[in-house]
């Protein structure tokens, strides 16, 4: 992996971040009745705060200069104040972010653990009964919207069986193992909803990537070495099939975040997804903008991680 490649990818991330911020700001600027202006004219807000807001957003300046103002403020970490939660937006988001990242991370892990072996097994026995069942289940998996799976799981595990709690609590008072147990119990369903949805598409990605690799010449070479089918598949097939899978997974990230918002809303997980919904319902514009921007940054970040993984998996990259 060459350093040049990494630097190039990093540099490419900057214009995409700028582009995303531009899109966000245009949406905001095009919106009827300046959303920030509304705040400034809201009688519930003390006049000195309103005046400060007017000055900060330069409401009478031309659009481009307001955009630059807004952008610099965002980069300085000055994301505004949430009147609903009575705290700074960046503090609020930072409080909620870890929960979201943990849920998404655990779900990704579950997706990989489930989908990788199934995808590989299906592809190495194409058109077998196993393959057809796996494929049909994958189709069902990504055709089931997360909000419906969530409700189904609640109905089954919380209402009918009464095994798992369906409301996520962040104020569990127990300590030690008991705490861990409670946390695990309340995380099972959200992680399953998100992980199985993601895993279903991953099965298809892995299967088709493996099918592409299996018929390549170097796999026959590997087979002629007499190293056994297991090593052929693991070392030569799966290892190279992972390269395109990484890219496809990165492209899926925006969808995963969408699923995370829904999941957090269903199970009332205090992450940034449920924060977004509650802020929209409460007309808390600075928080809505802030959370949307964070989601955009996360997508760029995951794309960057995917680029690095890609370069790490494929030695040819360094020479492109």
């Amino acid at each position, binding site marked *: 992996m060459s350093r040049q490649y990494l630097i190039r990818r990093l540099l490419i991330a900057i214009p995409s971040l700028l582009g995303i911020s531009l899109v966000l700001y245009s949406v905001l600027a095009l919106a009827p009745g300046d959303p920030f202006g509304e705040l400034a004219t809201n009688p519930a807000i003390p006049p000195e705060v309103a005046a400060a807001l007017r000055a900060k957003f330069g409401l009478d300046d031309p659009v481009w200069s307001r955009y630059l103002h807004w952008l610099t403020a965002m980069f300085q970490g000055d994301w505004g104040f949430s009147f609903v939660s009575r705290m700074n937006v960046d503090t609020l988001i930072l409080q909620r972010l870890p929960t979201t990242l943990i849920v998404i991370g655990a779900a990704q892990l579950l997706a990989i653990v489930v989908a990788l072996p199934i995808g590989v097994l299906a592809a190495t026995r194409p058109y077998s009964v196993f393959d057809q069942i796996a494929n049909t289940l994958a189709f069902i998996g990504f055709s089931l919207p997360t909000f419906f799976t969530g409700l189904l799981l609640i109905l089954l595990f919380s209402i009918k069986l009464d095994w798992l709690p369906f409301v996520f609590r962040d104020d569990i008072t127990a300590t030690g193992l008991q705490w861990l147990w409670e946390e695990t119990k309340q995380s099972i369903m959200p992680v399953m909803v998100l992980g199985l949805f993601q895993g279903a598409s991953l099965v298809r990605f892995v299967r088709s990537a493996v099918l592409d690799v299996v018929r390549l010449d*170097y796999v*026959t070479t590997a*087979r002629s*070495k*007499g190293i056994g089918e297991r*090593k052929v598949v693991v070392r030569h097939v799966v290892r190279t099939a992972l390269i395109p899978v990484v890219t496809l997974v990165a492209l899926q990230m925006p969808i995963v975040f969408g699923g995370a918002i829904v999941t957090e809303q269903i199970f009332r997980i205090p992450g940034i997804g449920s924060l977004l919904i509650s802020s929209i319902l409460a007309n808390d514009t600075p928080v809505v903008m802030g959370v949307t921007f964070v989601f955009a940054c996360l997508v760029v970040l995951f794309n960057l991680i995917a680029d690095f993984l890609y370069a790490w998996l494929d*030695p040819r990259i360094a020479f492109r």
Partner: protein
Amino acid sequence: MVEALLDIRDLKTWFATEDGLVRAVDGVDLRINRSETVGVVGESGCGKTVTARSVLKLIDMPPGRFAGGQILWQGRDLIPLQAAEMDKIRSKEIAIVFQEPMTSLNPVYTVGDQIAEVLREHEKLTRRQAIERAVEMLALVNIPNPKMRVHDYPHQFSGGMRQRVMIAMALSCRPKLLIADEPTTALDVTIQAQILELMQEMKEKFGMAIMLITHAMGVVAETCQRVVVMYAGKVVEEAPVEALFGDPRHPYTQGLIRSIPRVDRAAVHKERLEAIPGTVPSLLTPPPGCRFAQRCRFAKDVCTQAIPPLKEVSAGHFVRCVL
């Protein structure tokens, strides 16, 4: 008779396709003795590659299957062998070099690791020992600066160099038989000669037998002791190399030999190169008689009625023709 190293008897490798059964190899007999170089020639699609891959059981099953015959390796039939047993023979006793050096090496591992993989599997070497041996092998196949290049990836090598790596890999466990499946077809003409020369050199050093699959008659004349001519999944002629070129009996062999471009003749006599008219018949529903009959200018009625048997016309010279 001495026991052959490899003795293929009445081998049938068939493929189930959407359109029906393709009899790619349909009753092939082929013998290779110790330290012997045997050429297998024929047009593309005649079954020579499938025969070669059948020996190492590298055919995807399904769609392929062995419909009959035996592949005797030092007297032991490989067809019923378990996968684990087969793996002990692959590369250790029979190694193969493929046609496409550009795609036959895994792009994500260094060439050293790929050669070392064979040695670690069959000779139980440590990674370090195996890499050392890989360096030796690379030096042996004349790759300059092998100590450095052992850590390079395949895309850092040219086609000719990759084929040298493939040969190094194939020979790393000193196999008794090297199957070379059109090893030079994908290379530039000047590189082709170098690779053939390298194979000769290796043969002198290691004394293994070679099964050389090719469609270039010139290459056969230069390197082989015995030649097997295949047509549409069957052997049509087999002879020592001098006999084949001196007295080709099968009309198809005659056609093949006449189609060798000869610079000297073409320049002096402005002779047109002779091509065999027509194409290989469908292997889905092969014609009942001699499979070459449709393209054969000597064809008679008997030719289209039954497949002629392989008959010996002189010592070691067999031909499947009524003429």
